């Protein structure tokens, strides 16, 4: 399975490392043309406004939408989840608008409130080390979707069809279980 990590800005190598650890062929993707032979895509943590600005150039928006609509799995972490969402609280427009979730940005406060905690993630782990950095949360998940994790009653991970979103940063840990889960989604989609 060949999985790309969108490498416009953010924590790219961390995702590559974990994808390789679960047995995928992982590549950093910097040009739109590089999407065509991928089986799945990860949109990493970073600054969602920055990544979005960069995606509005060189045809990224259309290309990633076509990629997702062709049924290929996409995994967004933190900023990546915001970019995938159909709705963003307080904003008129979404970015990619692919995944039927509504997100609230910086929903746990500023950097000094950033935290880590072990959480159960359905179908993945009973004690997943979740690292939240100026993190968003998922206010709503579409009816077809499945909530995978909650923290203090707030949804922090979900799957809707071929899309997977986490408000936290699996790429900042050594834990490969969520990446394994995504790799299985990619295999199923084939």
């Amino acid at each position, binding site marked *: 399975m060949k999985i790309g990590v969108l490498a416009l800005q953010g924590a790219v190598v961390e995702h590559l490392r974990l994808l390789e650890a679960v047995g995928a062929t992982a590549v950093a993707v910097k040009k739109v043309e590089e999407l065509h032979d991928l089986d799945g895509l990860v949109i990493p943590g970073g*600054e969602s406004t920055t990544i979005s600005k960069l995606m509005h150039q060189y045809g990224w928006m259309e290309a990633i939408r076509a990629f997702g609509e062709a049924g290929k799995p996409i995994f967004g972490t933190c900023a990546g989840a915001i970019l995938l969402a159909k709705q963003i609280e307080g904003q008129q427009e979404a970015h990619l608008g692919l995944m039927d979730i509504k997100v609230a940005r910086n929903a746990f406060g500023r950097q000094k409130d950033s935290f880590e905690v072990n959480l159960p993630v359905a179908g993945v782990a009973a004690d997943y080390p979740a690292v939240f950095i100026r993190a968003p949360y998922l206010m709503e998940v579409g009816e077809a979707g499945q909530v995978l994790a909650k923290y203090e009653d707030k949804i922090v991970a979900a799957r809707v069809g071929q899309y997977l979103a986490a408000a936290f940063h699996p790429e900042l840990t050594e834990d490969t279980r969520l990446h394994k889960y995504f790799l299985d989604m990619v295999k199923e989609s084939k």
Partner: protein
Amino acid sequence: MVQVGTDRVKKGMAEMQKGGVIMDVVNAEQAKIAEAAGAVAVMALERVPSDIRAAGGVARMADLSIVEDVLKAVSIPVMAKARIGHFVEARVLESLGVDYLDESEVLTPADDLYHINKKDFTVPFVCGARDLGEALRRIGEGASMIRTKGEPGTGNIVEAVRHMRTMMAQIRKVQAMSYDELMAEAKNLGAPYDLLEYVHKNGKLPVVNFAAGGVATPADAALMMQLGSDGVFVGSGIFKSENPEKFARAIVEATTHYTDYELIARVSKGLGSPMQGIEISKIREADRMQERGW
């Protein structure tokens, strides 16, 4: 158990900034321009380094109302500078909710012997360094991110290049060393032994390393990325240029696509003149900001 302000959360914040541009701003309006241009964070200041240099006198933490205005104006992270060793300025900025502190040589040092014990803070710190020893001493004190010192406010990239090249060469040397040689090298560099061991094993710093101090054009930013920077700070360069909005966007694109020369050519066209630069040898040694810090 929930843990706030852990090492991982502090270093992780810097990881999320990788491949991005952090821009100096002096008011809310500039902060909005920076955010719209794609900055990953802004540094809220009272004056940009070139104006600090011109003004002379003692440079302190910024007017807090500026910091507050910037915090309210943008949704991206906001950084602010405290004087070297001035842990009270740092605490005050932390209490305002600033996302990242820069213990910075751009301001007049408050302590001529010691830096802040950054491990005590919930908020992460970035510090400047000219070489590997200095970088590891700052990380030993708790810095979660390193940047080159360069020579701030000059629009002259030569010092940042020297500092990045020095660090990278030293990292390669330490990585290639025999384990037996590490303690003597730790002594030579003035670096904590355990951190040097990390560099030996991993061939990189244990934290993110940005370029700063003299980046004035998109090509400067791309140059620093190719030399191994994880991202770029642009101080006086943007809002001292003729068309800050366009200039900021161009620097962001050049930082992302740093090996795409046609793209850099395209975004660099028609930017107007960049900031006026200063030749380093024309700055008296006592006025060089990079000499501050120990």
